[in-house]
C-alpha cells in the first residue's frame, strides 16, 4: 500500500486537493455536507495509516480505549467528584503512550504505537480535565471521533481543545466567512511550502549537510547549533502551517503553533511563542494544576518554591514526552533551570530596577541572549552533544 503520511509527498497534497474540492465549492456557497466531510475524514485516516496495517489496528484499539475511559469517567463524574477516579482515568489514558515511549528500551512495546499517538493522547487527557472541572457534561461519540481523529492535525498537532473545536465544527460558515477561511487556509499552506520545503530543505541540505560540521570542534558544533535551530523551526513551523491551512479549509480554526519564537525577549516569552499549543497544554494541565493544588493545600509556605517545583515537574515531563532518551531529559531540565533562574532575575529586577526593559538597546540584548539560550537548548535536544555523556 502506498504511503500517505500527512504533508510528506505531492501525492498527499494531490489527494487532499481532490477530496477537498467539493468541500471548498460548497463552503463558498455557504454550505456544508456533513456526511461527505465525515467520509473524507474516515478515508483520510485510513489512508494515512494504511501503509502500516499494524498502526491502523493500534490506532483503532487506542481510540476505543480512550472512548471507553471517557465514557467511564463521565458516568462517574455525574455521580461523584472523587479525585481517585480522576487520577485513575488520566493514568489509564496515558498508559498506551507511556508504554510506547518505554519501547525505546523494550522494543516489543512499539507494536502499540502509531504516528501521532502523543498528540492524540493530549487531546484525550484534556477532555478528562474538562470533565473533572465540570466544563464538559456530555460528549457525543461522533463529536469525540471527529475531534480525536481530525486528520489535518493527527500526526503532529497543533493540539486543539475540544470545546474550541466543537464551536467551529457546529458552525456552518456563511459564504463570506468561508471566503476568508479559504484565503487564510491557502495562505498558510503556501507559507508551509516556503518554510518546510524551501527554507527548511535548503538549511538541512547545505548548512547541516556541510562536511565542515562533522568535526567535534567548538566552531563546528557552534555552527551546527544555529543551523539545527533554524531547521527545527522551519521544518516544524512549516508542518504546522500546512496543518492549520488545511484545517481552515475544513472550517476549523486550528490554533497557531508559533509566533516568531526567535524574537523572544526572555525564556518565559519564548514558551509563549514556541510550539504554543504544546506549551499551553503543559502550562494549563501540568504547571498550573500542580501549583494550584500545592498552594490550596498549603504543601509549602513559600509560593515561589512551589512554582519552581512546578516548573521542574512541567519541563521534566515535557522532556520525557519527547522520548525516554538522555538528551530529552537534559533538555527538559535545562529549560526548567533557565525558567527558574529567569523568574528569580525578574523578581530581583522588580525590586532594584537594574535591567531597563523599555530601553530598545536592552531589549535587543535580551533578544540576543535569549536566542542563544534557546539555541543551546536545541543543541542538547538534537543529540549532537551525546558524545559528552
Amino acid at each position, binding site marked *: 500500500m502506498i504511503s500517505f503520511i500527512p504533508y510528506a509527498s505531492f501525492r498527499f497534497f494531490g489527494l487532499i486537493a481532490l477530496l477537498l474540492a467539493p468541500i471548498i465549492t460548497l463552503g463558498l456557497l455557504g454550505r456544508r455536507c456533513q456526511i461527505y466531510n465525515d467520509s473524507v475524514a474516515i478515508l483520510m485516516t485510513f489512508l494515512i495509516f494504511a501503509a502500516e496495517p499494524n498502526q491502523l489496528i493500534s490506532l483503532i484499539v487506542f481510540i476505543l480505549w480512550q472512548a471507553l475511559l471517557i465514557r467511564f469517567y463521565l458516568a462517574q463524574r455525574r455521580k461523584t467528584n472523587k479525585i481517585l477516579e480522576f487520577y485513575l482515568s488520566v493514568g489509564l489514558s496515558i498508559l498506551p503512550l507511556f508504554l510506547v515511549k518505554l519501547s525505546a528500551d523494550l522494543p516489543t512495546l512499539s507494536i502499540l504505537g502509531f504516528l501521532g499517538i502523543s498528540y492524540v493522547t493530549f487531546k484525550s487527557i*484534556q477532555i478528562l*480535565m*474538562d470533565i473533572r*472541572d*465540570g*466544563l464538559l457534561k456530555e460528549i457525543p461519540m461522533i463529536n469525540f471521533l471527529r475531534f480525536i481523529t481530525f486528520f489535518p492535525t493527527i500526526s503532529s498537532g497543533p493540539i486543539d481543545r475540544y470545546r474550541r473545536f466543537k464551536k467551529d465544527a457546529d458552525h456552518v460558515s456563511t459564504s463570506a466567512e468561508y471566503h476568508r477561511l479559504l484565503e487564510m487556509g491557502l495562505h498558510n499552506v503556501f507559507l508551509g511550502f516556503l518554510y518546510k520545503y524551501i527554507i527548511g530543505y535548503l538549511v538541512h541540505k547545505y548548512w547541516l549537510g556541510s562536511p565542515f560540521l562533522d568535526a567535534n570542534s567548538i566552531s563546528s558544533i557552534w555552527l551546527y547549533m544555529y543551523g539545527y535551530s533554524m531547521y527545527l523551526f522551519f521544518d516544524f513551523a512549516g508542518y504546522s502551517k500546512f496543518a492549520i491551512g488545511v484545517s481552515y479549509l475544513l472550517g476549523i480554526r486550528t490554533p497557531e503553533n508559533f509566533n516568531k519564537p526567535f524574537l523572544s525577549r526572555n525564556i*518565559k516569552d519564548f514558551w509563549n511563542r514556541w510550539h504554543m499549543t504544546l506549551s499551553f497544554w503543559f*502550562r*494549563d*494541565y501540568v*504547571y*498550573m*494544576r500542580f*501549583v*494550584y493544588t500545592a*498552594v*490550596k493545600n498549603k504543601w509549602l509556605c513559600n*509560593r515561589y518554591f512551589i*512554582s519552581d517545583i512546578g516548573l521542574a515537574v512541567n519541563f521534566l515531563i515535557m522532556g520525557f514526552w519527547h522520548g525516554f532518551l538522555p538528551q530529552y531529559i537534559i533538555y527538559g531540565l535545562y529549560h526548567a533551570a533557565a525558567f527558574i533562574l529567569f*523568574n528569580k532575575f525578574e523578581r530581583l529586577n*522588580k525590586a532594584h530596577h537594574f535591567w531597563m526593559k523599555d530601553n530598545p538597546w536592552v531589549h535587543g540584548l535580551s533578544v540576543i541572549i535569549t536566542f542563544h539560550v534557546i539555541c543551546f537548548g536545541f543543541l542538547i535536544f538534537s543529540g549532537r552533544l551525546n558524545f559528552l555523556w
Partner: protein
Amino acid sequence: MKEVKDSFKQKVYSILEDACDCNEIKSNPNIRLFDEGLLDSFSTISLIVAFEQELGISVPISDFNRDEWATPAMIITQLAKLQ
C-alpha cells in the same frame, strides 16, 4: 445582564492589585494584564485561590482563558457570571 455591585468591584480590584503587585488597577480597568506582564500563570493561581477564599467563587483553571479574562473589567464580568 445583572447589575454588578460596587462593593464587589472594589473587592475584585483589591484582589487583583495584590496578585499583580501593582496599584494602578482601579484607575485602569481596561489594562491588558497578561500583555502588560502584570499577570502570568503563577500569579493567576494566587488570583484563583483568592477568588475562591475571599469571594467564594471557584473558577476552573482551564476556564481562565487569557482572551476572555484579559482585563480587570472583563474579569469582573466573568466573575459576576459565575457568582
